[in-house]
């Protein structure tokens, strides 16, 4: 296969062996961790800033506006200006706030993001950790971000924040089910929880095409539940601006607020990249049956580009959700989960299991 020229396995292997030759195994691990850490911090910052910019541009185009366009070409340095400003903004200590938890909350949100980012396959061999229970790990870790939100709301000594945090808690606890079940549908289909294996299994066709209707339903449910889990509109009850001013981060200012702000976007990126990995073939190029020429051309696009393209497509859809739909009410949010998504999801899992059992898939 020609697209194996973009295989990163040998490259990472080479780094590993050359480091091992140079120093002891312990220091090798430390150095590798340091390299990965720095790379992820850079990746995090770039993606976060880009997504903030992208959202502002997307919403501008949806709303017949131009959006930021004065800093750099098409205003691409806008978010950098925002970051500089937020870095040098005053951090206000809140009276009667639980100082420790108040300061801790933004970091929890950020740390959780990093833990998930490490487990996502960006290209063949470009993978920080390749767990054999990758999906399980991602579900487990990503649901921890609610702790940050809850702490922020609780420790702020602000009534709006508290209501926002409680809402967020109820929301994430229930939508975690849908995310889990829709991913389980695909795990049944793929027969593995290891992300690299799942991606490899999509070499002959993406799961959303291979998996008949159940895969498509699972995809739709995953997108809805994923949007809810990231606290984005129309599920942004935790920070519902027209009701709770800014929800759980009402009292945060400066860089701590920026952490929440960035984390929201990275969460969206994570949700989208899991959707891309599991449903849309990850870094696998798009192939149509036996069209050799077409497939060959598709193969020359680097896998990282494929991965990012799919991810940004999903992100675009999620952004459109936010800019189109009105916000749900808290009870409607829970009704949607427990009355609609969950039953459909359970039936969907059964159907998928049946399909796999009968061997009806391609």
């Amino acid at each position: 296969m020609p697209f194996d020229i973009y295989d990163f396995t040998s490259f990472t292997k080479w780094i590993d062996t050359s480091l091992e030759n140079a120093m002891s195994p312990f220091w090798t691990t430390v150095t590798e961790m340091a390299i990965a850490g720095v790379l992820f911090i850079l990746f995090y910052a770039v993606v976060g800033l880009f997504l903030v910019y992208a959202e502002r541009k997307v919403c501008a185009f949806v709303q017949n506006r131009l959006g930021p366009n004065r800093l750099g070409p098409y205003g691409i340095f806008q978010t950098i200006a925002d970051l500089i400003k937020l870095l040098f903004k005053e951090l206000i200590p809140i009276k009667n706030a639980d100082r420790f938890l108040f300061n801790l909350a933004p970091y929890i949100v950020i740390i959780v993001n990093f833990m998930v980012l490490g487990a996502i396959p960006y290209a063949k061999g470009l993978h920080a950790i390749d767990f054999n229970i990758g999906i399980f790990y991602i579900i487990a870790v990503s649901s921890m971000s609610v702790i940050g939100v809850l702490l922020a709301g609780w420790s702020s000594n602000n009534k709006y924040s508290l209501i926002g945090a409680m809402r967020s808690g109820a929301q994430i606890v229930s939508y975690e089910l849908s995310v889990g079940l829709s991913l389980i549908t695909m795990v049944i289909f793929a027969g593995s929880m290891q992300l690299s294996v799942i991606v490899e299994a999509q070499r002959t066709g993406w799961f959303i095409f291979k998996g008949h209707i159940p895969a498509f339903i699972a995809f739709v449910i995953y997108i809805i539940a994923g949007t809810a889990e990231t606290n984005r509109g129309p599920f942004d009850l935790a920070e519902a601006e027209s009701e709770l001013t800014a929800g759980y981060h009402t009292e945060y200012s400066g860089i701590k607020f920026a952490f929440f702000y960035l984390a929201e976007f990275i969460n969206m990126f994570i949700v989208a990249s899991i959707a891309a990995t599991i449903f849309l073939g990850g870094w696998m190029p798009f192939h149509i049956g036996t069209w050799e020429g077409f497939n060959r051309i598709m193969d020359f696009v680097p896998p990282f580009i494929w991965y990012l393209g799919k991810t940004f497509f999903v992100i675009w859809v999620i952004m459109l959700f936010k800019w189109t739909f009105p916000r749900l009410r808290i009870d409607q949010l829970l009704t949607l989960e427990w009355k609609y998504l969950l039953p459909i999801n359970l039936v969907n899992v059964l159907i998928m299991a049946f399909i796999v059992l009968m061997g009806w898939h391609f």
Partner: protein
Amino acid sequence: MRSIINYLKDIFWGVMSLLKGLKVTASYFWRPGAIVTEKYPENRKYLVMFERCKGELIMPHNDKNEHNCISCGICQMSCPNGSIEVIPKTIDTEDGKKKRILDKHIYRLGQCTFCGLCVKNCPTHALAFSTKFEHAVFNKALLIKVLNKPGSQLKKGVEQ
């Protein structure tokens, strides 16, 4: 059974209504022609304002730097919130008579509500509105203007 059908119907129509909304927003996203934004600071060279637009009060002067004001004070009286102050002075004309002329026509831009009563009531059409709107200042005192200063705007369009 009926309840299940209703349940599915609900979902179907719900999803359809959402897709309709998405169609509108997504179609605008792919149509840059629909963008209506005026680029203000860049376009100010060729920005044409409506001729009746009320930007600030001016006292048009003709090319000899004369204005029409006879300092009757009607504008000051008709102003509902005292943003105009007419300070007259008396001078001796050549034929020995005393004449009341305008010394200072003070206009407080920071207070004006652009109701147009002064322009409407002026018996000699000495006042008009200009379309200039760029007045933002750092110093509040600059918003108090003297309208009859020499070299102010040439007389044009006052006859209307």
